[in-house]
């Protein structure tokens, strides 16, 4: 358990507290310490393995004197160290504005542009988004957010939760550790972002002839899984068996190619009745490709993301917190396996040694596309430089 800070005497830099301890008490103690060091707002990235109790944390979070944001993720990381247990607490030297939105279906306004009150969000403030990945209204909320705030605002975020896909409280705010919630955090400083994934086209295009939200029913008028299985088995050595769908599909995500050749990755995580279930929606009539990756490309994409964001932020330490926030898809860990530390090293290389890097392995990432819209991404890495 340790404080890591760039400049202990400076109140203009963030305080970062990293701990491999998993208890509620340790977390609360850490929050107190960070607050005592003069932080004006807090970001908590905690591991799902900690099994934090919402009940135990409630009163302390509610009585916290400064704004809180954050989430519970499968893993978190600081610099090139991944923690599968423990937490990171970032004490920002500024006040963040946190708005939470209920994602319970019955609370959702069917008129997307009215779900999020655009006027409540300051037009010049970039945003962090923490969202409960286990709700089925995640994408709807993200669309609503964009429809309300419009372009010109940098947004990054990640889906919180655990990889057993059981819904638990996973979003930290001053209301407690809660679920069915999206947290929109307005930053008083500008943020520069980059998105990469490193996946490449294996075959396609194919026409999605029948789909409903995240469920792809038919491709080229044939059952989706049949098409998917046939082309993978024809072009690679992978073979689908009764119970290895996920292990195989992790290597072959779907990609929706936009008009400007931007590939939006969709991760097929489940197969049922010859239908593919993805993380994120696949529109009917969209052209999709089957993607494949190789370790080298995937890792190099992570480094590239670091470089890209560094380039756009100008790497000016005087006007910067020297802090990078990373949301890296948990499925990349599953894909890279033991080689994941190479990805973390690549990120650090890309960003440069001077920067503090905090991040989480997320279930779905959120970021602006090149055209400004906000998307839910799969198998991607998003970096925001503050």
């Amino acid at each position, binding site marked *: 358990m340790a404080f890591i800070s760039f400049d202990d005497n400076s109140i203009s830099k963030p305080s970062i507290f990293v701990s491999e301890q998993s208890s509620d008490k340790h977390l609360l103690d850490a929050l107190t310490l960070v607050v005592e060091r003069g932080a004006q707002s807090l970001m908590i990235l905690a591991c799902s393995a900690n099994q934090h109790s919402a009940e135990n944390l409630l009163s302390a979070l509610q009585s916290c004197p400064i704004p809180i944001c954050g989430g519970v993720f499968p893993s978190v990381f600081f610099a090139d160290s991944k923690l599968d247990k423990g937490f990171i607490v970032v004490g920002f030297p500024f006040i963040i504005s946190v708005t939470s939105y209920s994602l319970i279906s019955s609370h959702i306004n069917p*008129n*997307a*542009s009215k779900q999020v009150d*655009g006027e409540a969000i*300051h*037009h*010049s403030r970039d945003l962090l988004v923490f969202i409960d990945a286990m709700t089925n209204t995640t994408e709807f909320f993200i*669309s609503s957010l*964009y*429809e*309300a*705030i*419009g*372009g*010109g*605002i940098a947004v990054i975020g990640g889906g919180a939760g655990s990889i057993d896909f059981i819904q638990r409280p996973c979003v930290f705010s001053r209301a407690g550790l809660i679920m069915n919630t999206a947290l929109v955090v307005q930053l008083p400083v500008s943020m520069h972002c980059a998105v990469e994934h490193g996946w490449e086209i294996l075959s396609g295009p194919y026409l999605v002839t029948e789909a409903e939200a995240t469920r792809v029913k038919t491709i080229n008028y044939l059952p989706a899984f049949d098409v998917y299985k046939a082309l993978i088995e024809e072009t690679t050595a992978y073979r689908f068996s009764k119970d290895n769908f996920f292990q195989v599909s992790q290597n072959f995500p779907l990609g929706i190619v*936009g*008009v*400007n050749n*931007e590939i939006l990755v969709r991760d097929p995580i489940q197969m049922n009745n010859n239908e593919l279930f993805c993380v994120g929606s696949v*529109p009917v*009539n*969209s052209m999709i490709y089957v993607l494949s990756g190789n370790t080298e490309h995937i890792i190099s994409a992570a480094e590239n993301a670091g470089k890209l964001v560094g380039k756009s932020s100008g790497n000016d330490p005087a006007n910067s917190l020297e802090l990078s926030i990373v949301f890296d898809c948990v499925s990349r860990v599953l894909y890279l396996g033991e080689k994941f530390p190479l990805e973390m090293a690549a990120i650090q290389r890309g960003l440069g040694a001077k920067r503090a890097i905090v991040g989480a392995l997320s279930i779905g990432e959120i970021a602006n*596309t*090149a*055209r*400004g*819209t906000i998307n839910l991404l799969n198998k991607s890495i998003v970096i925001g430089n503050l």
Partner: protein
Amino acid sequence: MAIGNGLNLNEMLQSFMRVAIARLDLSSAHLFLFANEKQEPIHFSEKPVAGQLSHYMSIPVQYLGVSWAKNEGLHQVVCDHLQSNSFSSVAYFNEKVYQSFCIPEQGVIVFESVIEIEPSIKKSLEPIFKKIALSCYACLVHESLVAEIGARKNAENTIAHQASHDELTQLFNRRALTENLKNAIDSCEKNKKFGALIFIDLNQFKSINDVMGHDVGDLILKEVAYRLKGVARGKDTVARFGGDEFIILLPDLGGCEQVAEQLVNKTTIRILDVIEEPLMVDDLIYNVSCSMGFDIFSGLVSFSNVIKNADLAMYEAKALRQKIAVRYDSSMSEKVNIRSAYISELKNALKNNEFSLCYQPQYDVSHNIIGAEVLLRWNNLKHINESPDVYIPIAEDSELILAIGDWVFYESCRQLKILQDFGLPNSFKKLSINVSARQLGQENFFDTICRAIEASGVNPRQITIEITENILINRIHDVITLISKLNNIGVDCAIDDFGTGYSSLTYLRRLPSSLIKMDRSFVRDIHKDAENRSIAKMIIALGENLEMDILAEGVESAEELQCLKDLGCYQYQGFYFSHPLSFDQFRTLMQQSCLPDS
């Protein structure tokens, strides 16, 4: 792209624009539609003009905190597009591409993107926008139909409401009450229960209308209606039956008649409480009271009888001047039947010429005949001894008084003409003919008088009409106008029964009348009754001040006469001088009075 699946214009376009943003990699999409003055989208088949385009929708709604609807650059893109008169056009600013497309006869859509949409894709959009235009048109037609149906439904609801509700008070009207009453009677019969109908009539409400005007009267009726609604239970019907009459129908009062009556009594007490609570209209406080009657029913009765019975009971309460509601009993119907029979006999009397006139001579202080009051007599064996005080009020309650009054006036004129032809004594000035309130209220009353005078050829300067003080109170303005007109043709006016009402002295002064008849109640035992003397003195003084003669009615003794003389009253009528005389007797008296020695 699925277009036109729904018929809601906004939803359809919103859905299309979302798909377009996602599928064409747009940053935003903006729709401008042709609109009318109310900014409602319209189908516009003429040559497009920028002024008729209105910003309809943008997704997202804003950029950097500013609504797209206020974005001048975007509006310029649309104007330029319209001027270009082409299907699509492109503009570049703020490092973005703005591609606008025509939606035929509906408007313009603008897509914002990072790179320009490929020409092949643009081309493929043309049929899509044509389809969008058709869908817009379908939605607009649908929406106008929906609006029309909605308006029709509203109109139907309004008509249905109007058909069953009173326009002023918004209470149920007579028609709805009848329906509800029928249902209540049926239900009581089926379920062996009792119901009740309370008939409420506001007392003296007409005076409020006459004095303060109908606007105030209407406000009071509305307030009363509101208060009555507060008294009613959810299942009760509160209705305005007409004018100042209200009805509350209590449809379900249980299976015990006694309990039902108790419930009705409780309700009527509450009604009384709420109605008698002073009410304020235009900063003035009004005290309203009411008379109530009710009938309890249990089925096997006609709705009209229930209403009639409650009405009768209400009249009974009014006649008894009692506040507590009166329950109907069959003796009331008997009374009404008797009254109806009486009215029938009166009608026959008129038809069979059973009425005659007699004359109550009037004298001056020297015992000269100065005039006479015409009195009505009913020459029917059954009614010969009945005073007009019995049958005139009954006739007044029906329209019969008009026919009787006309007959009296015509006959009086005819007989006066005979007297005039025979010759009247020099002292004789006027023949007084009584006129009822109803006669005065007739629009053609003046014409009737003129016709009677003309038909008889009588000298109208010897006719006085007598009107009671109470008539004056109720319709002073009308009466002043009417008397003035009568004065112009020579007919005079006397105020009868003076002192029994509350005439406004201001109006009395303006009334073109020459005679006040002091009511007999102040004359009786005037020599013994100091109070009557004081009143008489006051009336005499009033007459002097207003330059009106005072005639004392009901003089029956020498003592009374002497006292009146002493007080300064010099005109009289009463049994002391003469009992009422038949025409022949009166004519003889006149002839005698004309003799030099008389």
